[in-house]
Every structure is written in C-alpha cells, then in structure tokens.
C-alpha cells in the first residue's frame, strides 16, 4: 500500500489538474455560446444561397459549364479545418481520419490546412501541404473565406486542380458534431434531384445576366459561403468538443479524487491503529 504522503501528493496533483480542466470547460462554454450564435446567424444566408444555386442548376442542368464538370487534372485540393489547440477529444483526429481513411490517393492530394493540429498530423503522414492558414480559425471572417476561395478557384480555372473538397466538423447541436467531407467543385448535379418540387415562383425565375454568366459569378460566391459556413461550424464544433472533453476530464478527476480520499483515509486509520497497538503493547511490556 502506498504511503500516506504519496497518496496525498497524488491527490494534490489531480486536484490542480481538475482545476485546469474545469476552467477550460468554462472558457469553452462561453466560446461555444458565441460561436453557436454566429453559426445560427449565418444560417439564413446559406439556406438562401443554397436555394438559389440549386434552382439555378436545375434550370441550367444540361449546361456544359467548367464549374459543373470535373477538371482534367488528377489533383484534388482539400481544405482541412481543424483546431489550433488540442484537448478537444477526438475532434481533430476525426477530421484527419476522413482523409486518411477515405478513398483518396496520397499523391493526388493537396492540403490547404486551416488549423495547426490537422496540418501537423497530415504532414507527419506524408501528405503534401500546399498552404497553411491557421490563424483564421480563431476568428473566422468572411473576408478570409473569400481569400481562400479565390485562390482555389483560380487554381481550378487554371487547371491545376480537378476537384475541391472541404473537410470540417459539422455542428448539429452542442453534443453532436459530425466530421463531414463536402465536395465544393465541380458542383454535383445529383444533389439537385429534388428540385422538381420547387415552388412555382422559383421555377419561372429570370436571370440577369444570362444563365451562363450568372453561373460564373454565383458559383464562386457559393463556394466562398460554403467555406465560411465550414469555418463557422467548425469553430462551434471545436468548442463543443472541447467542452465535452473537459467535462468528462473533470468528472474523471472527481472520481479519482474520491478514490484517493478513501485510500488516504484508510491509510490514516491504519496508521493510527498501528500506533495505538504499539503504545498498548509497549505499556503492557512495562507493567
């Protein structure tokens, strides 16, 4: 049995760890509130954007637009959104798994990393990191999303990459986050299968300028908005995941402290009993 002093020291160290995890949980709770609000506020924009783009694509279905068919290049660009800091449970590794376990060829991939953790892991696995923009995950802004979107679209237009994907963690609610892999370009026609149910007002929509040109201008905005949406959701998910991880760490620490307290008290009692026995035995020996 460990000595009383050892147990006490161990308990002390767990207690201070618990204090840290508790504080981190509080911090991420506050951050989560803010990120959640943000994600909700931006939802209106994306829903509207999505509707417009799908209704447009439904009309221009047969169009042979470069944004609608796969580029010739084998290269695939993936934007990987992870966090800059750890201690968020499986948050980062789940996103990385999407890529390592997915059916991509390592040589074909070009990683545009947002978030240090994902970048480090993928780099260790030998993936080709094209770019790293890890600062923007702290405070996602639309301008950042625009900059990344423009870069990727330029590369796509120049034929350097054939497909663009976005790997991020979707935020369903505070406890449910799911890693998602989204194909940004080419825009897939399959997702517009249900557009036949579109309301009449949408069906007779006119476009100014004409379809082809409008597509040229709207698709980049669509891609940007998806990137921004990914950033905002990932930010909320990160804090949600961290909150959960820290919550369970705190309760685990609580459990360990309880157990150690019990051990400590037993050891204390044991030592008192032993001392008493020794005194009594000593007194008996004298008399």
């Amino acid at each position: 049995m460990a000595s009383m002093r050892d147990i006490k020291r161990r308990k002390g160290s767990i207690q201070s760890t618990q204090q840290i995890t508790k504080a981190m949980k509080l911090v991420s709770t506050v951050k989560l509130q803010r990120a959640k609000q943000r994600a909700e506020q931006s939802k209106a924009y994306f829903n509207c954007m999505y509707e417009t783009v799908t209704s447009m694509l439904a009309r221009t279905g047969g169009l042979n637009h470069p944004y609608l068919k796969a580029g010739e290049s084998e290269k695939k660009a993936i934007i990987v959104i992870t966090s800059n800091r750890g201690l968020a449970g499986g948050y980062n590794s789940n996103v990385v798994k999407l890529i390592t376990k997915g059916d991509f060829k390592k040589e074909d991939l070009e990683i545009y990393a947002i978030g240090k953790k994902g970048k480090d892991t993928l780099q260790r696995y030998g993936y080709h990191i094209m770019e790293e923009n890890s600062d923007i995950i702290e405070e996602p802004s639309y301008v950042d999303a625009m900059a990344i979107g423009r870069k990727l679209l330029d590369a796509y237009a120049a034929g350097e990459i054939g497909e663009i994907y976005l790997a991020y963690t979707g935020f369903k609610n505070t406890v449910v986050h799911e890693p998602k892999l989204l194909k940004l370009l080419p825009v897939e026609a399959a997702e517009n299968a249900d557009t036949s149910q579109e309301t009449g007002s949408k069906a007779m929509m006119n476009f100014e300028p004409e379809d082809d040109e409008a597509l040229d201008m709207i698709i980049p905005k669509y891609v940007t908005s998806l990137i921004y949406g990914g950033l905002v959701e990932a930010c909320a998910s990160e804090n949600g995941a961290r909150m959960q991880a820290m919550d369970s760490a705190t309760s685990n620490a609580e459990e360990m402290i309880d157990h150690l307290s019990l051990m400590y008290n037993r050891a204390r009692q044991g030592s008192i009993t032993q001392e008493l026995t020794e005194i009594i035995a000593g007194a008996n020996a004298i008399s």
Partner: protein
Amino acid sequence: MADDNRNFTLKIITPDRVFYEEEVSMVEFNTVEGEVGIYKNHLPMTMIIAPGILTITRGDEVREAALHAGFTEVLPDKVTILAEIIEWPSEIDVARAKEAKTRAEERIKEHAPGTDLNRAELALKRAVARIETVRD
C-alpha cells in the same frame, strides 16, 4: 390602404447577420447590367450586384448603404439581397476609403505587369461607392 399595397418585404442578409428586414416601397442598387430600381410586383429575377449605393425608400424615409458584392433575388412581393459586403454610412471609414481609392487609381494608371486589373477596378468602385454613400 393604397399606400400599404405598394410595399414589399426587403430582406438583406450578410454572412454574419440579417442586415435589414422591413416593409419598403422601393429599393435601388447597381447590378452588373446597370442601375435598377425595384417596386412591388417586379418580375421574378436573380441579379448580380455591382459595387454601388443601395437606396431604400420607405414612405418618406430614405436610407442609404454601400453595397459591394452579392446577388439578389427579386420576387413580386419580396426582395432578398444576399450581400457579401454591405455597410451603413456610419460604419464606413472615409479616410480608409479615400486611401484605397488613390491606391487603386495608381495601380490602374501604372498598370504594372502582374497587377490584376479587374481586381483594382473593383477595389476602385468599392472605394467610390463608400465615399459617395457618406457624402450623401
């Protein structure tokens, strides 16, 4: 009554927030095809926005904002503007806009190799729109 019937819903959404949502009688802005003004019962249409001033008329009240990019969906009784960047005059930093204007003008004048002319022109338009919004 007649007055009420002339109003339609204008909704301006940015990625960060719902910028404006109100019953209005007219809205004007720039599109890539030119300036447009929209009343109620307009033909359903989707238009791409060019940098310029957005004017909202609501009864006797007129409000302006600098609208830089996005697109708009017009329905007979509802207009939705998906704005990537939009600002009320109070949110505009005039000094910065003027700086951006001179910078963009220089870039266009010099036309050094490697400069993206389209981008410089867009930047110039944005700066001009900002400055004009504040001046009015």
